[in-house]
């Protein structure tokens, strides 16, 4: 990332960036949650400038304003200025300054320190990373290294996604292996929180390990890992998100689907969609299931409304509450009349499952990942 924070004054604070391109509703998660202009992308940029110019001193409120940006990139997508691509990077760069100056809120610091020390943001022992998983072989020159990532290693919601992906890969006869307890954090959240030193260290460690193992293709469960690894400098391996591979397998006819009458809506994760332009594959997988009806939410694809879990928020959750993005998103999904909210990211799964519980909607519908939908259809024969 090479952005010059001295250009932050170019923001006009005009607010195109807090809307999706359709304008249907506000689309900046932190603005939706707090509703003060200060929490909108433009307000935040103006405050960053005021802080850097020493018109404002650092405070808990400023910390919350800065770190409640989940890095969803809706602002960069919808800002109308030539510098649009830099908008999210400016916010990340400001987080970097806060981190360097030791100003990050304790929860953020703890998050990063845990990654540095334990390789995961919760500070859980490395030895527990893969204990839950059994019967999956370790990587030894297989075609794919299946990279689970922290969320799929430690969170129950993420583990579900990993189990489903593994089952689908096995059903399709794919050659893959995992790293087990040797797996290291991918560094995406360190990057998004502006801890560039840590990101580089993690990237280096991962690349070194992959090189030693002769890995050619990394298959990620999480779009966050996918996004991070795409940024690794001088990367010598291919990175593939599981939906990309599953779509290829669907096309090759590897799965025998049965009819499954079911109305499904799909939530685009930011790091697959806006960051990496992957919109079609997950949808095509779902649409290949006979009987499945895919209905879109009012904010979809480039305009998807983030679940609020990015940039570490799935752990320190500065956006919790009645108007948390995940709860707002779940209500939006419910409006479609779908019975299943399909996801392609373990963090989204975790955020949205919790939101369904908080909204008391367990009876109405459930979150399932794309791999699980394949399994459901295969099993319903």
């Amino acid at each position, binding site marked *: 990332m090479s952005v010059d924070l*001295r*250009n932050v*004054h*170019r*923001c*006009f*604070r*005009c*607010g*195109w960036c*807090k*809307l999706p391109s*359709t*304008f*249907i*509703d506000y689309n900046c998660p932190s603005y939706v949650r*707090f*509703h*003060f*202009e*200060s929490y909108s992308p433009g*307000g935040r940029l*103006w*405050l960053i400038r*005021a802080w850097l110019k020493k*018109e*404002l001193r650092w*405070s808990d*409120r*400023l910390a919350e*304003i800065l770190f409640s940006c989940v890095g969803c990139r809706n602002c960069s997508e919808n800002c*109308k*200025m*030539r*510098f649009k691509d830099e908008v999210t990077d400016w916010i990340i760069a400001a987080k970097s300054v806060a981190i360097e100056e030791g100003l990050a809120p304790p929860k953020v610091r703890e998050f990063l320190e845990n990654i540095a020390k334990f390789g995961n943001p919760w500070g859980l022992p490395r030895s527990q990373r893969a204990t839950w998983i059994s019967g999956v072989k370790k990587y030894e020159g297989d075609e794919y290294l299946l990279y689970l990532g922290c969320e799929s290693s430690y969170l129950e919601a993420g583990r579900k996604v990993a189990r489903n992906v593994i089952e689908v890969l096995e059903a399709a006869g794919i050659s893959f292996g995992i790293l087990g307890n040797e797996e290291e954090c991918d560094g995406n959240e360190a990057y998004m929180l502006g801890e560039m030193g840590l990101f580089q260290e993690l990237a280096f460690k991962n690349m070194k390990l992959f090189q030693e193992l002769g890995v050619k293709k990394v298959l990620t469960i999480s779009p966050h890992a996918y996004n991070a690894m795409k940024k690794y400098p001088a990367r010598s391996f291919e990175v593939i998100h599981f939906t990309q591979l599953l779509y290829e397998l669907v096309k090759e006819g590897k799965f025998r689907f049965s009819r499954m009458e079911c109305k499904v809506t799909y939530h685009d994760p930011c790091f697959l969609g806006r960051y990496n332009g992957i919109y079609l594959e997950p949808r095509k997988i779902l649409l290949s299931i006979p009987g499945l009806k895919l209905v879109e939410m*009012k904010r979809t694809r480039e305009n998807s409304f983030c679940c609020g879990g990015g940039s570490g928020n799935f752990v320190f959750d500065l956006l919790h*509450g009645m108007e948390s993005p995940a709860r707002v998103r779940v209500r939006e999904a419910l409006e479609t009349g779908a019975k299943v909210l399909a996801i392609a990211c373990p963090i989204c799964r975790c955020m949205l499952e919790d939101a369904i519980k908080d909204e008391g909607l367990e009876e109405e519908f459930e979150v399932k990942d794309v791999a699980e939908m394949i399994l459901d259809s295969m099993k319903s024969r």
Partner: protein
Amino acid sequence: MNKKEVHKALAEIVGEEYVSDSKEDLYIYSRDPGLAEPHEADFVVLPKTVEEVQKIVQLANKERIPVIPAGASLSLSGLTIPYKGGIVIDLRRMDKIIEVNRRSRYVVIEAGVTHGKLKAFLEEQYPDLCHSLPEAPPSATVVGNLMIHGQGHLAQQYGFNSSMVTGLEIVLSSGEICRIGSCALGSYWFSLEPFPIPAGLFLGWFGATGIVTKAGLRLYPKKKLRDVEVFVVEDPNLVPEVIYRVTHTEMAEDITTSAQPYPLMFRDIVMIQIYITGDEEEELEFKRKLIWSSLRDIINSKEGGFMTLAPNMKIAFLERPMSNITRFADVLKGGGFVYCGAIIPIDMFSTALKKLFEIASRNQVTFSHTGRVIGRGHCMMFSFAYPFNREDPESMEKARKAIQESYIATLEIGGIPWKPEPPIQRVLLEKMPRETAELLKRIRSLLDPNGIMNPGNWSV
């Protein structure tokens, strides 16, 4: 009450989460993207209901604390700056589109609904209806626009947006809730008339007489197809005649003008954008033909002609709202522009343009002009716009001077500065006959005896 007690009282009304006196929030709500000097607010509150607005105003009135209603604060004239401190009421949590009456073609909205949201909602639910959309960023509020007599893409056909209002719900400075129009008698919001129209006591007052919490607004037929033709003249004196002829055909939806020094291909010409709409190609073609033939002799004499538009130019002209207008803020890579929107008789177009060139050259600033015809040539909004660089005090000072001179020029040519900043409002009040200013003053003190409503605005 001391500040702490006021904070507590506000928190009891809107909830702790929706009131702030943190310096970060005050920083943002103390300024707007224009060039007006910031003034610090004491509190920002985000009410969700009319009852909450009512209670905030009651509290403020009792304690004699100024209240400043705010939408997106995008007037660029400092109209939501708390000149005397007080409570900024950001109304954007009140964002429900309450009702659309399709057959009577109106919508009822809460104060915080944005132009973007209303446009998107209508496109999705009522694709044959639209409201008059200004070129403001879609994050701007509809009611904020009504309170400054804004104009949108239907201005040529139906006038100022504020003349499209069919009903208002207002919280008065006393905290009383007042309804105006058919909604005062029943559940329909279809018309202000035939009452004596007290809506004029609120529209155009910048919130200095009351806070609008709901508005009824006329919707209009939205045709399936829309196109633009750009007529170009070198002699600005011809512009009023071109507009006269095109408005006579009654075939155009919207007529806008533009002139700018860059890119060079646009220098020394005036462009007149003529928008046409139709449900079928045939209808478009018919309108196009009538417009062309109304200008035939000007074309034949080579004094003007239609421009062939490159596809990207056409897309830019047809975008709604036009993001190019916002992008003007980045011309100096500095995050800002200001404009004086002069409401002028169309006859004064070339005089206004000449003034713009003079002001720009005198102050060594770059500029842009855009204009919009209001009514069938009854008047137009003529903007004198100047970009500035927020990091460059010299460019800010130049733009500031240019904009002041533009206001004065507007008055000199017999125009009315639109959404003027408070110092210019005072100039207007001084310039008008004493009796007229006195009448405005009396209206204001009748509606706001304690002077708490957006003080600094429309005060003599």
